[in-house]
């Protein structure tokens, strides 16, 4: 589904991704961990097409298409979704209008007619239930005045609305209380299918108790320096990153 080969990306002459290799198959869950500033969010930004970063080398294919050739909106329509680490507030753009526009743009891309008003309301209702999000929130402007946890829930709500093929969850667990964490994780798990894949970026094992990864990767200084099964996350929780850093420097 996603094949990343020797990906290099920079911002303002600073190389942040320094040769990433990663392959994700349909249905797989990959966790990416690593110390602050390692480049995890940069990788998500580059994959989703944020023009702030410049790709200097490497290739990425997504379901056979050259991903780097696509605009951010086309990547989304092809089924890529990013749950942002820091969701942005957009006062004046209502959640309803935002979601209706997004859903319809996806439908248009697939050659379908715009969703009917009643179907849209039903869809909203169902997905709100799925992630247990307060109706008051979806009646407001996008993320405006939302608490940290509410913003994260809202990301998962949007994911549920758009049903992506590959979801990248960038620290979706940070800022969530224990109940919200469970709800969000359940939301993610309910969307799981043999066709859908997930990249979970996190610092904590906690989330991985709910969303169980098939692989755990450690990103450090712009490279994946270690990959293993889910037990790696436990080991990291216990021992921290020092031993990996040391291994890498050696």
């Amino acid at each position: 589904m996603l094949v990343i080969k020797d990906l290099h990306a920079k911002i303002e002459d600073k190389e942040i991704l320094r040769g990433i290799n990663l392959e994700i198959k349909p249905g797989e869950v990959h966790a990416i961990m690593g110390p602050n500033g390692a480049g995890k969010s940069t990788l998500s930004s580059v994959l989703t097409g944020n023009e702030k970063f410049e790709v200097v080398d490497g290739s990425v294919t997504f379901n056979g298409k050259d991903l780097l050739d696509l605009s951010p909106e086309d990547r989304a329509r092809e089924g890529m979704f990013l749950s942002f680490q820091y969701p942005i507030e957009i006062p004046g753009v209502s959640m309803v209008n935002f979601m209706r526009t997004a859903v319809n743009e996806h439908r248009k891309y697939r050659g379908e007619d715009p969703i009917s008003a009643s179907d849209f309301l039903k869809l909203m209702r169902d997905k709100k239930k799925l992630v247990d999000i307060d109706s008051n929130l979806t009646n407001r402007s996008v993320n405006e005045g939302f608490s940290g946890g509410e913003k994260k829930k809202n990301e998962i709500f949007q994911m549920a609305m758009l049903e992506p093929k590959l979801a990248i969850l960038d620290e979706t667990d940070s800022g969530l209380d224990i109940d919200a964490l469970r709800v969000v994780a359940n939301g993610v798990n309910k969307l799981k299918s043999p066709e859908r894949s997930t990249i979970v970026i996190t610092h904590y094992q906690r989330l991985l108790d709910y969303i169980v990864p098939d692989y755990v990767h450690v990103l450090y200084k712009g490279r994946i320096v270690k990959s293993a099964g889910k037990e790696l996350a436990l080991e990291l929780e216990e021992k921290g990153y020092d031993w990996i850093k040391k291994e890498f420097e050696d």
Partner: protein
Amino acid sequence: MNVACRIVDLQEEYIKLFNDQLPLIQSGSPEKMNSLREEAIKIFEEKGIPSNKVEAYKYTNLQPYFKGSLNLAFTNEAAHTDVTQHFHCEVPQLNTYNVFLVNGWFSAKDSDTNLPDGVVVCSMREAAEKAPEAFEKHYGEIAPTKEDSLVAMNTAFAQDGAFIYVPKGVVLEKPIQVVNIMTGDEDRLAFQRNLIIVEENAQLKMMLCDHTMSAQRFVVNTVTEVFANQNSVFDVYNVQNQHNLTTQVQGLYVHQKKHSNILTNNLTLHSGIARNNVGVIMDDEQCESHVYGLYLTDKNQHVDNFTSINHDKPNCQSFELFKGVMDDSSTAAFTGKVFVAKDAQKTNAYQSNNNLLLTQNAKINSKPQLEIYADDVKCSHGATVGQLDDEAMFYLRARGINQDESRVLLMFAFAYEVIEKIRVEPLKEQIRGLVEKRFRGEFDKCDSCVVCGQPGSNASCL
């Protein structure tokens, strides 16, 4: 009678025109209007059409726009009544009482039976008969004839306009919509003078919709005086929807009495050169004023909003918000004067002006001017100039929304705050739609009369 004239030197020719046509100008106008003309033309003669050397007109040199070959109508034949027949309201929820003015002349209105008892809506030329006392008392007393040469020019030349009188205690449920149309086959200069009186405990919401219906060059000088008596509530929404060859200078001057609550909103959706003067005088305690504006500009359009709010008495509040979205090489200016008199203690005055520039070439001059002589006041002001937020753009695009659509969403998000201030629900809806269309580039100033659906096929458009 129509007079075609060629203006090269401004004052000289305008003064000559005034002197030559004085008998016609006076004919049929109320005495009060005529009695102020001589003094007004002297003031105009002295000051002339402002260039950008005049401080208040620093960002808009009007002289070139008042020059050239222009037609003036000194009798109401310019009020082509046939034009107004094409107008019909296509917003069923927006049930308004309609008044039409063509080229500055009162042309048509809905039947008086649709108005509550005692409410007068008529031509300025009939005002002295229909509401003699109020007309005598307020005409020419609110607009700053001595300070502003364009008001002086209007006072000297204007022969017609809309007059609205809402007597004590009457609350108009239906908004009154005054549709101002510029049309005809000649380039034209028009004067229009309106007077609105809202008496004690009365309420009026009105729209002033400015349109152009033919592709000629139009120069419009409009002055609207408003008297808001004790406990009155008054809203005016000025929707400007004119083609690029239009120059419109208009003044909206409001005089407030105790406990009155007024709102002005200048919605400049499309224009050529627009200069909007808004002057509010709170001359009694416990007045509240809301002064808002939204300007959307592109190509080489220019919009200059010049506001002045006077807190003359204690315990008054004013809220001012102007926002602009500017594209291409359009320019705009905002001046926000707030004057707080020495004994106007406990004044609250808030002002802000925010601008979104879509290109490097668009330009805004924003100038707050606070003059505060009282010591126990709360005043704030702020001006911002920004571009579209890249992060917000990316967020929207990352959800599959294309770049153009994302831009529209963000521009609309920027503008919506001013639209939300509209206190007439169906109008708010309508303006929302029009602003969105404007941002999408689908806005046709000819086929979408702002409030009434104006079929474009009837007019040749620019």
